[in-house]
């Protein structure tokens, strides 16, 4: 199908863009890379009165290392992050996660800010943001504010961004020493949205026990989900296979009913979350010991 009628604007500044969002009062959509919005327009699932293209606003496309993290502009192409030698060397989790997003041809156009603001619960960037305690910078009519990842994702395709706010940047902290990571997903075909996925981070203390951990499941709920109950079973203990099995079982059991659709049943998604959690915790611990 072809997109419905809409008006189109290319504001030159964030102030102009937010003014348009205020003026259209919920009837405008922001266009970033368009890898989600234009298919939705083509299928006429989205019928905005106005499409506001952010492409002409300067200074939204950058990847900057700041010592213990990477600040990334909202309009930065996913491929630019993947191709950054600094990201590859200093943030292997972010590098690995980028490669799971759709196909290179989509990552060439798709942006970091677009994927995060779209907030598909099966997408990789939101899950990584939650696992890494990323911080989001939003600009609205009343100025700039910072939102934590824990407060950002509300439900399916819904974030805490106000209707006239624009996500301008996100900061992904790098991982400290003796900390390992893993990101795994199962998809029907390479490049498809995952049926279920897991981001695991394991930090080891001087005594070899788990000092800190993050276990985030994605594709199995309305948002990426931090498995806090399961994390609690791990902290303070020696990371070993029997414990991983218990932690993963708890993480899967704590899920509300995952989605059932043509691709997978809720039970299958729940079981994938369990199996992937074991694998991801194992991989993250191995990397932590080597780090």
């Amino acid at each position: 199908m072809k997109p419905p009628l809409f008006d189109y604007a290319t504001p030159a500044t964030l102030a102009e863009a937010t003014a348009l969002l205020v003026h259209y009062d919920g009837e405008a959509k922001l266009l970033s890379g368009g890898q989600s919005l234009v298919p939705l327009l083509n299928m006429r699932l989205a019928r905005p009165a106005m499409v506001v293209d952010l492409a002409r606003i300067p200074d939204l496309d950058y990847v900057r290392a700041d010592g213990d993290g990477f600040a990334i502009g909202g309009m930065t192409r996913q491929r630019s992050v993947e191709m950054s030698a600094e990201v590859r060397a200093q943030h292997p989790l972010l590098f690995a996660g980028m490669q799971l997003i759709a196909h290179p041809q989509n990552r060439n156009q798709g942006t970091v800010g677009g994927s995060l603001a779209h907030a598909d619960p099966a997408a990789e960037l939101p899950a990584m943001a939650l696992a890494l305690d990323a911080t989001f910078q939003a600009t609205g009519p009343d100025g700039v504010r910072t939102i934590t990842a824990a407060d950002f994702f509300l439900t399916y395709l819904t974030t805490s961004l106000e209707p006239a706010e624009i996500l301008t940047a996100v900061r992904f902290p790098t991982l400290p020493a003796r900390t390992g990571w893993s990101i795994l997903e199962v998809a029907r075909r390479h490049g498809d949205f995952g049926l279920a996925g897991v981001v695991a981070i394991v930090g080891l203390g001087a005594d070899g026990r788990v000092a800190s951990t993050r276990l985030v499941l994605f594709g199995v709920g309305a948002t990426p989900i931090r498995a806090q109950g399961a994390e609690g079973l791990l902290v303070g203990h020696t990371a070993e296979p029997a414990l991983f099995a218990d932690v993963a079982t708890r993480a899967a059991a704590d899920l509300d009913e995952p989605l059932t659709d043509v691709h997978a049943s809720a039970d299958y998604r729940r079981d994938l979350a369990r199996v992937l959690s074991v694998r991801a915790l194992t991989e993250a611990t191995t990397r932590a010991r080597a780090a």
Partner: protein
Amino acid sequence: MSVTRRIALTVNGERHEADVEVRKTLVDFLRGDLALTGTHVGCEHGVCGACTVLWNGRAVRSCIMLAVQADGAELKTVEGLADGATLHPIQQAFLEKHGLQCGFCTPGFLMSIYELLTRDSAPSDEDITDTLGGHICRCTGYQTIVEAVHLAVEKMRTK
């Protein structure tokens, strides 16, 4: 009431200016307005890869880009590959290795492979698979396309 915008862009080295409806996708603009029908329209939601073109050197899906987004851009389509009657080495490799049967998906494959080989003259098997993974071909089973990429690498090295 349709809304139009004046855009200027370069396609295969040639500059074009046109008034386009803002809702028109880039692939429909290339095919309908510029009569560059080598770029094919498949799924119209960014999955099949038939519509892939180079946008400022990067392979993108022209079915999920609006033509107005390409204002000021430099594009390359499959029509820009051959040098007159002489096929581009990637096209020649497809011909020699039977990298196509019906040919519907071929223009998209060619453009993605062009981007890959422009960036990396000796891509790993993993990079090749990752690039081809963004395209669907229902005829070949992909093996002959992989062989064509390897042959194209050789041809472009000795060129």
